[in-house]
């Protein structure tokens, strides 16, 4: 905002606006807490009363936002302690934080801050509902992953939040499943196989995929669309069909159950990702640059590595990343094309889940999530760096 004084919006009414909404939020939390303790109706009523009281108290007597929110957190943490002991404090503090935030967000008129001043009430309502829905989608995407992280530290042999874990008792947690992963020869062999197969499959996918994408982007190549369709078909054809087909074909030519068979199969699955990302990057590539290079005496190979490759590198890298993750996560094709000697991590997880339901799978999943996050972060940082170096603004 500038120094111009805008007409401030009137403060929202406490009794007709803030109080009902905060009461509703309190009722919702009360209902959830009550359900967890098998008494939803009293929970609902108590939650509504506490919510209303909190909103009234904060708006009327606590003009300082920071102090008010801390007060709410402290109040709810104490309630949590009384209701549910040690873990109750954490849950209570979280609920208190949310309640305090909602109260001030509504009472100070902040909820209109992100929308243009001329928006009508229904438009503001829709805008905030929209943000809420986005948040929910995000939650549904993330929640399953977040749930497995604490479960992987379970001290028991089951996929269960034990009472000890819920009470935040250190005895309920252990690293035994991580130890099992690093000491069990089955898991170690699976890890070694995955690490041996994925990079080579990625290398093949990236080489072939990049070449194919460059070739298919040339105007003079005949039948470009049909060829493209065939090359990306592994992405569209159901995996189980590709896998069964590969199984019989590879058996005939003696590749079934061999290391190279799995590498080739995974490379075939990875190629479409590389083709698509590289083709997308090539759209923005200026062909006159290659002609200029040729004009200055560079042969096609030099031109490719010195001029074209650096410019399309972001596409190649992200395609390669997808190819790597495809190979690293793939379970259907390897079950068909591989034999027990090529057992990869996903294969081991799959059989482990079916036969044993061992939390070691969760430990492995947590490690894989961490690796994926690191990989994606590194690639994103590389991409921004290269764009900065080339004077482009990060997208």
């Amino acid at each position: 905002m500038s120094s111009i004084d805008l007409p401030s919006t009137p403060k929202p009414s406490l009794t007709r606006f803030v109080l009902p909404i905060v009461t509703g939020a309190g009722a919702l939390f009360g209902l959830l807490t009550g359900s967890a303790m098998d008494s939803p109706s009293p929970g609902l009523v108590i939650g509504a009363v506490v919510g209303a009281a909190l909103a009234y108290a904060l708006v009327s007597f606590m003009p300082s936002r920071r102090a008010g929110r801390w007060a709410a957190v402290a109040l709810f943490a104490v309630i949590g302690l009384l209701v549910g002991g040690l873990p109750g404090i954490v849950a209570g503090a979280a609920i208190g934080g949310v309640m305090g935030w909602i109260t001030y967000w509504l009472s100070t008129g902040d909820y209109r801050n992100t929308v243009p001043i001329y928006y009508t009430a229904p438009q503001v309502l829709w805008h905030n509902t929209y943000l809420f829905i986005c948040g929910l989608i995000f939650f549904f995407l993330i929640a399953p992953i977040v749930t497995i992280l604490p479960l992987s530290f379970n001290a028991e042999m089951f996929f269960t939040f034990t009472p000890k874990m819920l009470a935040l008792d250190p005895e309920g947690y252990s690293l035994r499943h991580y130890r099992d992963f690093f000491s069990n020869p089955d898991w170690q062999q699976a890890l070694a196989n995955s690490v041996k197969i994925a990079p080579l499959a990625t290398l093949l996918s990236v080489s072939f995929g990049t070449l194919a994408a460059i070739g298919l982007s040339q105007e003079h190549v005949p039948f470009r669309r049909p060829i493209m369709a065939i090359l990306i078909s592994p992405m569209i054809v159901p995996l189980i069909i590709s896998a069964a087909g590969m199984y019989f074909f590879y058996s005939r030519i003696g590749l079934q159950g061999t290391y190279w068979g799995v590498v080739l199969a995974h490379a075939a699955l990875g190629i479409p990702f590389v083709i698509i990302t590289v083709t997308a990057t090539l759209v923005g590539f200026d062909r006159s640059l290659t002609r200029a290079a040729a004009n200055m005496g560079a042969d096609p190979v030099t031109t490719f590595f010195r001029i074209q490759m650096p410019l399309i590198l972001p596409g190649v890298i992200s395609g390669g990343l997808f190819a790597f993750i495809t190979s690293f996560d793939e379970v259907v094709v390897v079950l068909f094309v591989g034999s027990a000697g090529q057992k990869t991590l996903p294969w081991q997880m799959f059989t482990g889940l079916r036969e044993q339901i061992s939390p070691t799978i969760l430990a492995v999943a947590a490690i894989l999530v961490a690796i994926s996050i690191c990989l994606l972060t590194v690639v994103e940082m590389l991409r921004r760096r290269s764009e900065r170096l080339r004077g482009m603004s990060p997208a």
Partner: protein
Amino acid sequence: MRRMTTLLATSALAVTASATFAQEMADSMTLVSWGGAYQASQRNAYAEPYKEMHPGLEVVWDESSNEAVAKLRAMNEAGNVTWDLVDVVASDAMRLCDEGLAMEYDPDELLAPAPDGTPASEDFGDLIVSDCFIPQIVYSTTFGYRTDMVGDTPPDDICDVFDLEAYPGKRSLEKRPINNMEWALLCSGVAKEDIYDVLETEEGQNQAFAKLDTIKDQVIWWSAGADTPQLLADGEVVMGSTYNGRLFSVIEEQDQPVAMLWDAQVFDLDGWIIPAGLPADRLARVKDFVKFATDTQRLADQAAYISYGPARQSSAPLVGEHAELGIDMAPHMPTDPDNAQNTFLYNYEWWADYRDDLDAKFQAWLAKG
């Protein structure tokens, strides 16, 4: 000249003979099993000792017993059998034998006799239920219940599973008609010896489904042996059926508040089959391994790691203590006299005839509201 021919013929014979006796054995072997604790027991009791006797031998494990029939069919079709020895339940062994995918064998030639000289065919006795089946263990499908969810009167009768008033709560049953139909009929008043006669009739099948209907909305259906242990540990079900070895692991090794309900347990057999048409060197290796792995001591050793009964009569007296917990294993065996007061034996012939039909009816019944 004649002497020359004779000499040649003799030496040729000698060469052939020595080739058959000192058959080259393959230096790697792919064993197929069920994974988990069961595979670990096989590894500890005989695969590792065998490897120590034969340094340089590579043993690869494939946890594919669950889909062994389908995979062996595909391998056979593709002309590329990569498995050397496959662990399957008896009914699967029969199917594979009928389809010619498993090798028929002579027990007294392939398997070691008991220490007192009893030939293998007598030592295993009736448990060799198919010409291709090399029995290893007797296991049972039975119930476990949460001791903290059944009040003061723990269930001791199979029909308690159908008693929602005395034992309210969810129960887990296997998602197939086998065992469930027998238990349902038994608990709707059919005498044990009449069960299969009744089950052959349409009315009998309807009677079984009607009994299952009474608990249908309280049943969680499982398809993997690990499901019921997980559900019991979660407290999601008050009782559930699964393999007795899984329950042993939940109770003794994982220390969960669960106890066994042995009444009307159903015995079944598990063992090896050798895929048909193996190359000579791999076949020689497998035969050598099987002779070792199914001898009296090895089968008794296996019981130190898992509570399944050895298939040889001569192994039973040798069953000792659990390898880690040091508890006596005999009372945990399904074949222990205390546990085996009321048992069924999986009726292979009957189910071979009626399985397809009842599977279809069972699936239709499941889908119905």
